[in-house]
């Protein structure tokens, strides 16, 4: 994986000192909260319900065991012994003291990590496919491209005060594991007719109160023009994105109001100008970065044979492991969704254990997924049993990847000052109601996503089943949505009808899953049956 050189290191070190100075000025009264807020946000520091919250970037979801251990160390030393992995491949700490924040950033910088631009109206952490470099279905590793974008977007002087936040995702396969088209800019690496690698741009996707699937804006941007094209996309947005209304300020609204053709035309005009300015790193830079993402030294003799005589292990292998490009290896996903647990939370001990396993069994690499799990990307199949036993002991072996209890949930009203309702207790109750693994597996792939407010951090618009918590006259109320997807078959979920109480919405989920089991045809997932049968049938079952 990527290693900082002296320049990268100096940039993050300088940032730490800059922020230390800003915190000092805030505490001394030289900065008002209004002035300080965007500065702390651009270093990932929020003021949340109970305390300051720090969001640390895991660029394109990749980290090594040393970095993972540092995340555990921060949880122990500065927080309350746990962290929360988010849908954008970040980790959040909920109990941070402002006076500690500069020291935490310094600790992160010591292992080539940072919290730069994990918030604020700027370009956020670049996310990517958690299986990058390990899956056989990609045409290239997307991470070198993501790293090029990370460097370009870090401290970008023209694009640090955009109308609103800005999120990129980069993938390189037709299977979308990163909700690419629900980002402000989604990039898919593709080959052109000449066989050259380039980027297909989708612009103007997003969730929030006006969810949109990003339309394709350009089918091919050559590698050596990536940055000037991205600059063109951003400049049109920075100049013309709405600033009069916070809720209409995302680029999706601009693209929607102009229409994708007109937006694209304006970008092309800007791009023609940008190409003359020498903004693009040379191809040697992409080559330099790509060197860091070469395959680890796989054992070419590794066997595909597995002893599956332990039935619990066999289920975990079947459910949580994905095909690796290298024979004899697997991609193992560690589910952070134990029965009745808090989706995405991990204790410092669990974080340390995952780091140890990565060091011992996965060429020192881990990944954070957009569904709030952790991946060991390069595991020899013959090591899987030993890994599983250690995970199981630590409560990290739920065999529920992509099943109904593998839900995404935002922190909700338990932690978040924007929330209208709690999300986590609902995820916990659903996880208990559907605890029977046989039943979950019978239901098959079912993406359940819960948000505690309309900002949609829990991706409810992209859930096969989505839940949106709302405030109804001071009481928590939950709306049920059906038919969304954040994958390559991206679609937006629709609200079924009037909302429910917490228990009521779980009953409704049971009703729709029962209807699915009754109606499904051979090979259909929940979402497929829903799309074939239609909302009316499901509505009728729920509301009678």
């Amino acid at each position, binding site marked *: 994986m990527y290693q900082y*050189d002296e*320049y*990268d290191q*100096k*940039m993050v070190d*300088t940032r730490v*000192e*800059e922020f230390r100075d*800003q915190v000092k000025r805030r505490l001394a009264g030289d*900065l008002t909260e209004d*002035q300080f807020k*965007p*500065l702390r946000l651009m270093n990932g520091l929020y003021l949340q319900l109970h305390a300051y919250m720090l969001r640390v970037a895991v660029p394109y979801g990749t980290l090594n065991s040393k970095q993972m251990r540092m995340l555990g160390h921060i949880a122990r030393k500065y927080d309350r012994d746990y962290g929360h992995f988010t849908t954008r491949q970040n980790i959040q700490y909920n109990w941070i003291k402002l006076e500690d924040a500069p020291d935490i950033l310094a600790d992160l910088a010591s292992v080539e990590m940072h919290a730069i631009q994990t918030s604020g*109206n700027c370009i956020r952490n670049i996310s990517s496919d958690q299986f990058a470099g390990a899956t056989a279905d990609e045409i290239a590793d997307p991470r070198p491209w993501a790293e090029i974008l990370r*460097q*370009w977007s*870090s*401290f*970008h*002087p*023209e*694009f*640090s*005060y*955009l*109308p609103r936040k800005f999120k990129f995702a980069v993938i390189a396969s037709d299977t979308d594991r990163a909700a690419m088209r629900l980002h402000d800019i989604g990039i898919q690496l593709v080959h052109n007719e000449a066989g050259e690698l380039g980027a297909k741009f989708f612009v103007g996707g997003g969730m929030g109160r006006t969810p949109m699937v990003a339309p394709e804006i350009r089918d091919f941007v050559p590698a050596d023009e990536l940055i000037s094209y991205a600059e063109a996309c951003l*400049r049109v947005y*920075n*100049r013309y994105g709405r*600033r009069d209304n916070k809720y209409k300020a995302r680029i999706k609204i601009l693209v929607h109001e102009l229409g994708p053709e007109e937006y694209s035309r304006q970008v092309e005009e800007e791009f023609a*100008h940008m190409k003359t*300015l*020498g*903004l693009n*790193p*040379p191809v*040697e*830079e992409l080559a*330099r970065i790509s060197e860091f993402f070469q395959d680890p030294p796989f054992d070419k003799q590794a066997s595909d044979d597995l002893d599956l005589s332990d039935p619990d292990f066999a289920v975990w292998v079947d459910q949580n492991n994905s095909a690796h490009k290298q024979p004899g290896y697997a991609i193992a996903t560690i589910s952070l969704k134990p029965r009745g647990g808090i989706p995405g939370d991990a204790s410092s001990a669990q974080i340390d254990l995952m780091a140890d396993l990565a060091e011992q069994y996965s060429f020192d690499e881990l990944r954070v997924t957009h569904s709030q799990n952790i991946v060991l990307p390069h595991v020899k199949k013959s090591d899987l049993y030993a890994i599983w036993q250690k995970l199981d002991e630590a409560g990290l072996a739920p065999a529920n990847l992509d099943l109904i209890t593998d839900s995404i949930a935002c922190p909700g009203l338990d932690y978040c000052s924007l929330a209208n309702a709690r999300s986590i207790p609902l995820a916990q109750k659903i996880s208990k109601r559907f605890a029977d693994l046989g039943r979950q597996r019978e239901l098959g792939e079912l993406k359940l996503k819960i948000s505690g407010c309309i900002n949609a951090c829990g991706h409810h618009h992209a859930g096969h089943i989505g839940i949106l918590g709302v405030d109804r006259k001071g009481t928590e109320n939950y709306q049920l949505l059906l038919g969304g997807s954040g994958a390559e078959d991206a679609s937006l979920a629709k609200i079924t009808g009037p909302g429910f109480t917490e228990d009521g919405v779980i009953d409704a989920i049971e009703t729709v899953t029962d209807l699915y089991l009754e109606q499904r045809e051979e090979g259909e997932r929940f979402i497929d049956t829903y799309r074939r049968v239609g909302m009316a049938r499901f509505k009728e079952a729920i509301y009678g």
Partner: protein
Amino acid sequence: MVEAIRLRDDEVHEEPAVSLDSFLDQSNATAVRIEAGEDARLLLPYLDRLSLVEIDFPAFGDGRGYSAAQILRESGYAGELRASGDVLLDQVSHMRRCGFDAFAPDSPINPALMKEAISRYDHVYQATSDQRTPIWRLRHG
């Protein structure tokens, strides 16, 4: 009106800046002020005779002025480019990178601190109109 902090050596341009509309109406002005949201590209035909362009920041979080500045510099504007309005210490280094070389903040900024802020980072990741050498070029010569 506070006195501008200038990072250029030439004489201060005395003529007051006129609004963009007035500038486009009367062809002999040499100083112009553009508001956030006005199109800096309308000035491109006149860059040769402009000595001062003032770009207003109505609020420090309104970043349109950064693009306006870049557009003018990218097209060869060499006169004074002044940021006015809600210009704060923590944004001046980004402004500098986008080509501003004078600052007229609503609330005064200590010039020594400004100098420190502008020179804080030894290197930069992007090529912008301040012509600093981006890190990728240092890596590849």
